């Protein structure tokens, strides 16, 4: 019995093969087709972003209209979104109003969250050995302390053997860290190849169908 292949799968496999061949075969027609398909991808991704924004607005609008719990936050989100969109639409994204909103609201809020994260990480590191006292915890903690101390002079004083291009911090960052990172990158590359092949063969269909 012949198995029917959905149209979406055929499209995905065809487009993937064309784009993939464009990397290896320097054929003008393939290059043009690859470029056109990639530009379609950009357009679709932008539209998807717009659709996501509309969906976000719709979801929070329902919460507000349904008077659900914590709907006041949804109302704030809707007002903020509409206000920012109105500023960008009326004055442009590079206008002083738009940049003021970005510089004085978004950047401080997100930066404060990162500053809070620094305090939380410090507190967690303090209590880490109380929770879990073993060899790996000790190695992790020692490495973190070396990297922190080596990132900047201790109270303005550089410690020989720790700071500098040939110090312990640079050694850890360039040898074991790079070795581990390369292993991770190789794993990412292999996983990407496998995933790409599965998508090209239709085994994986993250797009549905």
């Amino acid at each position, binding site marked *: 019995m012949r198995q029917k292949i959905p149209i979406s799968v055929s499209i995905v496999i065809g487009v993937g093969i064309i784009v993939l061949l464009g990397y290896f075969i320097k054929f003008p027609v393939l290059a043009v087709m690859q470029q056109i398909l990639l530009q379609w991808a950009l357009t679709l991704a932008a539209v998807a972003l717009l659709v996501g924004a509309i969906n976000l607005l719709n979801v929070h609008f329902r919460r507000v209209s349904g008077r659900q719990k914590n709907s006041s936050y949804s109302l704030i989100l809707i007002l903020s979104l509409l206000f920012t969109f109105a500023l960008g639409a009326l004055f442009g994204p590079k206008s002083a109003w738009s940049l003021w909103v970005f510089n004085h609201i978004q950047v401080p809020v997100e930066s404060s969250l990162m500053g809070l994260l620094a305090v939380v990480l410090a507190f967690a590191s303090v209590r880490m050995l109380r929770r879990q006292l073993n060899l790996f915890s000790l190695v992790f903690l020692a490495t973190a302390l070396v990297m922190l101390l080596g990132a900047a002079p201790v*109270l303005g004083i550089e410690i020989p053997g720790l700071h500098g291009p040939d110090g312990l911090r640079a050694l850890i960052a360039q040898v074991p860290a790079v070795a581990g990172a390369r292993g991770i990158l190789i794993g990412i590359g292999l996983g990407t190849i496998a995933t790409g092949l599965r998508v090209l063969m239709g085994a994986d269909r993250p797009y549905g169908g």
Partner: protein
Amino acid sequence: MGEIRCPMCGKPNPDELDVCQYCEARLKPLIGPFEPADTHEPGEGKGDSVTDWLDSLREHEGGELFEAEEEISEGEEGADESPEWPAEVASEEAGIPDWLAGLGKSLQEEGETLPEAEVGAEQDAGPFRMGDLGEAEKAGEEQDFWTAIAPQEESEPAEQLPSSGEEIPDWLQGFGESEPAAQVESDQVAQTEPGEVPDWLAELEETAGLETSTDALEVEPELEEIDWEALQPDQVDLEAEQESPPVSEDLPAAAPFTLDEEEAGLEIGEMPEWLAEVSEESSAEEAPLLEEVDASLTPAELPGWLEAMRPVETAAPVAPFIEESEGIESRGPLAGLRGVLPIEPEITHLEKPTAYAIKLQISDNEREHASLFEELVLKEGVPAPVEKGIAISPQNILRVVIFLLLFLAVGWPIYIGSQSVDLPLPSREVNQTSQLIDSVMVSEPVLLAVDYEPGFSGEMDAASASIVDHLMIRGAYLALVSTTPTGPAQAERLIKTVNNTAGHAYLDASQYANFGYVSGGPAGLLSFAQAPRGVIRYGLNGEPVWEAAPLADIQTLADFAYIVVITDRPETARVWIEQVQPTLRDTEMILVVSAQAEPLVRPYYEGLPQQVGGLVTGVAGGAAYENGMPRTILARKYWDAFSYGLTLAVIFILAGSIFNTLAGILAKRKYTFKDQK
């Protein structure tokens, strides 16, 4: 303790049982008073209920055999006469005449040649008659009786009938004239085997008008005791019986349905006086009749040759079961009939199912465990109340202390503008980056990708500000692009920050262009790398970006002097390196990344050939870069705060780790000590 005979299977059962222990048939009827089934005999119980007159009626309706039974019960004289001649036959057994011997041989041959159908017919007819004669007679007794009477009847017609008909007893003459069953059977045999009829038997047929055959020997002895002359011919007319239903017009059976005035006044259950008298007399006469008949019959010894002659026994060695298994219905409209189906269906015999106690038989201990388990299950569904902790706990105090100390360590140097801590020395990758930017010509296009989130702006601004400042110093034309939605605004913010801190006056369109946001992730970057004009056509304000003089010759990203990527995420850096760098040919890529992305980006820098021409990581990288620059911007301002904050964080972590390690060890020892106790 009495016994009750089962009306279905006939087996005796204790009288206290309601259901037969063999066949589970009900022994005691559900309606009306109970009477043991084995006590009922034909003709009994006439005076028990109102249906007794129906019993007598049914006996008439049942045919002449039932009437014959009544005759037997009414006339005891005939019964007294019957034992005489079997006794004579028994006395003559010693000397069997020749003619009987010859007859025995002929009968034996005839029995061998008799068709099976006829044998079967004989067997079928036999049980029916024997069953009608009463259940008191057993099969063995009947066989004995047969053996006693068979040669007598054969011999008597041969010797006595030709000489004088008066010598034939009246009862036998009546039998010969009125026995319809024997006549029918003899007709059948005579038609099938006429040649084997003896001469003397043919003469007997002519003189007495009686068709005789060897089958006539099957006539029951009880029938011989009946006064056949008293019977009306129309009552025993076999043809009329076969053609018409059992109920005859001549019989008084219809009388009960035409009640006179006296009978109409009777209620159900009452019996007319005349009927009560008749029933009493008949019941009193019938019981001794059968007993006397049985007692008067003496078992005879049958010779071997005569034993072999008995076709019934050879064909049906087993006594008919109907006689024992079928009882006579004693009550209801079917009273007097034999072999009727039970009144109540089988389903009424079903007893109630055994009732089992629903309550579990468990012990107290098990019940306690079950209740405990149920309580635990119920508790699972109930949210446990959260105990309100102390508002100021040691952990909260510790958090506040850490926050305050870090805030002071970071904020105070920035607030006072301290620059006491020396900047780090530029590393190899920082120097390499600085050299690359030093080679940028005035108005040479440099693609500056600002791909970091606003939350990382503190670190990334400090890391990248010196490089942007360096580019501005070199007079490069900056093309700002981003793969994150907030990137374009972040790029504007970076340019404005560098302008403000370094004293530049980079203007839009003339000295830099903001391409905006490139969607699509890796695919978008690849497309942008291959054909930037196809992906980006207008700037952030809607102006055509490619019309600027520095960008006029740009067809691919390889046409830019340098590609500078500022990002806080290693994934974004990897995408830029993997998707864009292969298309750059001789154009170098410089990465300014956060400290967290350094481990994953450094392999691209350390690798051969280098995929990344320059690398600046975090605030330390920016500070080192500024250390090589003639002026300080953001990294310098942050460096003291960064140094003090990191030192304080390390002190906190180290002290807290030592304290908590000791506390944990002591706690373990404490628990171990308690366990040992």
